């Protein structure tokens, strides 16, 4: 088994502890995220997904337990300087990241991260150009104001702002929310290619089709507790578990399930449309042989 990039040890987090508004967001989470994996964190709204990812980047510190991220061990006592260094290892793409854009030009905005890391102006520019190249933004837009871009372009520039810091671990919190289908595919393909280049990608998602297609590991949260760790295939074959966590199976899986109810038999549970198509072709060929 590969070396883990992130290890959660009995992690708990409560918002607004000791007030009338205290809310237990996470309870007793123990899990590992493998180095170089593309791990999806799923769960219904309010299940603690974003809290968990904020803990990985040290934006929140756990009330109990500890989180091992690379060489850092985060507990409720972790200090300010340690967290600053942690931000170099972990990149965090927030929900609607285009909200964090502020500079006069696209290039300046992407340089912001590297400059914060103490890079020289020249290095920062170089890192920014590499990142902008990764997101396939036309070069003539580099000196435009980020506020002049389209929604999908702004999203990609904001992601470039995080990529420019060249993080070992990249967290993306619902990176496709509010984008058109093409924009969604672009972002996910980007995540996938980063994953193939060796970056550990943690993807928070609501869309099971994305999870089925891209993730190699899934963590399922339900009311602040970890209810499943494993492969998407394993998860989506457990209908009972999905129902309990208030999740829907991917479209292709649901389709196959309802066919199975009609008496069809599948050797492998299809997770994506391509899977489903292949399975159906096999079935139809079998039918043909019988006749």
């Amino acid at each position, binding site marked *: 088994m590969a070396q883990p990039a992130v290890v959660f040890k009995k992690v708990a987090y409560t*918002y*607004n502890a000791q*007030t*009338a*508004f205290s*809310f237990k967001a996470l309870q007793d989470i123990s899990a590992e995220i493998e180095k170089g994996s593309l791990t999806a964190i799923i769960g219904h709204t309010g299940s603690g997904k974003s809290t968990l990812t*904020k803990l990985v*980047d040290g*934006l929140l510190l756990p009330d109990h337990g500890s989180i091992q991220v690379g060489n850092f061990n985060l507990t409720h006592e972790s200090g*300010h300087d340690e967290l*600053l260094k942690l*931000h*170099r290892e*972990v*990149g*965090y793409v*927030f929900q609607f*990241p285009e*909200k*964090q*854009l*502020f500079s006069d030009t696209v290039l300046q905005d992407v340089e*912001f*991260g590297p400059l*914060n*890391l103490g890079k020289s102006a020249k290095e920062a520019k170089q890192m920014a150009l590499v990142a902008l190249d990764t997101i396939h933004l036309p070069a003539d837009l580099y000196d435009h104001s980020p*506020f002049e871009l389209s929604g999908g372009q702004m999203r990609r520039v904001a992601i470039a*702002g*995080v990529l420019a*810091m060249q993080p070992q671990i990249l967290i993306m919190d619902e990176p496709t929310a509010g984008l058109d289908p093409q924009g969604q595919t672009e972002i996910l393909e980007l995540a996938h290619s980063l994953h193939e280049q060796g970056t550990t990608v943690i993807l928070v998602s609501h869309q099971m089709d994305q999870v089925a297609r891209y993730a190699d590991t899934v963590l399922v949260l339900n009311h602040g507790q970890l209810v499943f760790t494993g492969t998407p295939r394993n998860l989506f074959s457990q209908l009972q578990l999905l129902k309990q966590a208030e999740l829907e199976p991917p479209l292709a899986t649901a389709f196959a399930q309802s066919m199975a109810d009609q008496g069809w038999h599948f050797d492998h549970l299809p997770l994506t449309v391509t899977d489903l198509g292949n399975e159906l072709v096999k079935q139809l060929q079998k039918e043909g042989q019988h006749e």
Partner: protein
Amino acid sequence: MNSKVFFGLYVPTNSILHRLDPRMKIIACFWYVVIVFLANNVLTNVLLGLFLLFLIWLSKVSLKMYWQGIKPLMWVILLTAAVQLFFSTGGQPIWQWHFLNITSLGIIQSIYLIFRFAFIITISTVLTVTTTTLQLAAGIESLLKPLSYLKVPVSQLAMMLSIALRFIPTIMDEIQTIMDAQRARGMDFSAGNLFQRAKRLVPVMIPLFVSSFKRADDLALAMEARGYQPGAPRTAYRQLRWHMNDNWAFLTYVVLTVALIVLRQI
């Protein structure tokens, strides 16, 4: 989500104070602030303090919440009290150094001043923790109604007020998110001198302005789409109703005021 708990936030404990008419509560709060200035001796201050404790007990909100309201203003209070202490004259001089002097009267007055501040802050907190922002706006609108005869756009002002109040928590959340996002991009908010720190607000303020304007635009569109017309007569879903308890509250205040005026003479 962290920022959601702050000074004066509405706490839904459904106490007897929560169920009072907001108009009564607004008048009561104002009146209390006025009569705080009538307190001129130990007895009157004790009376006001006990009355406030009684309200806090009625509100079923923990003392800690109220303390959180006073805490951030503690320095202002102490500074004002110190000015009062060192610069007031009258009474027996106790200590003197150049133009600074402490007198017996000065000590007493600065202690009263601290109490006055604490009372005023706490009574406003009682109002806001027991009254939702919508109720507050409705109460203010109703109380200002007479001004509409003077062509003052009361209902528009009330609408502006309720929108402003409604979006305070939203914007505080937004600030938290943007600061988190910039911190994740390696920004250190706490290092450097005052000037450097002020400069660091730029990556927070600009996104905040952008999203606030966008939100305002969306809100205006949504309001128009739902037929909002400034100046047109509007009805309210929840009508304000004056109950028997409001009469009792009013009576309590009359008694308090009379008692205060009597105790003043002693």
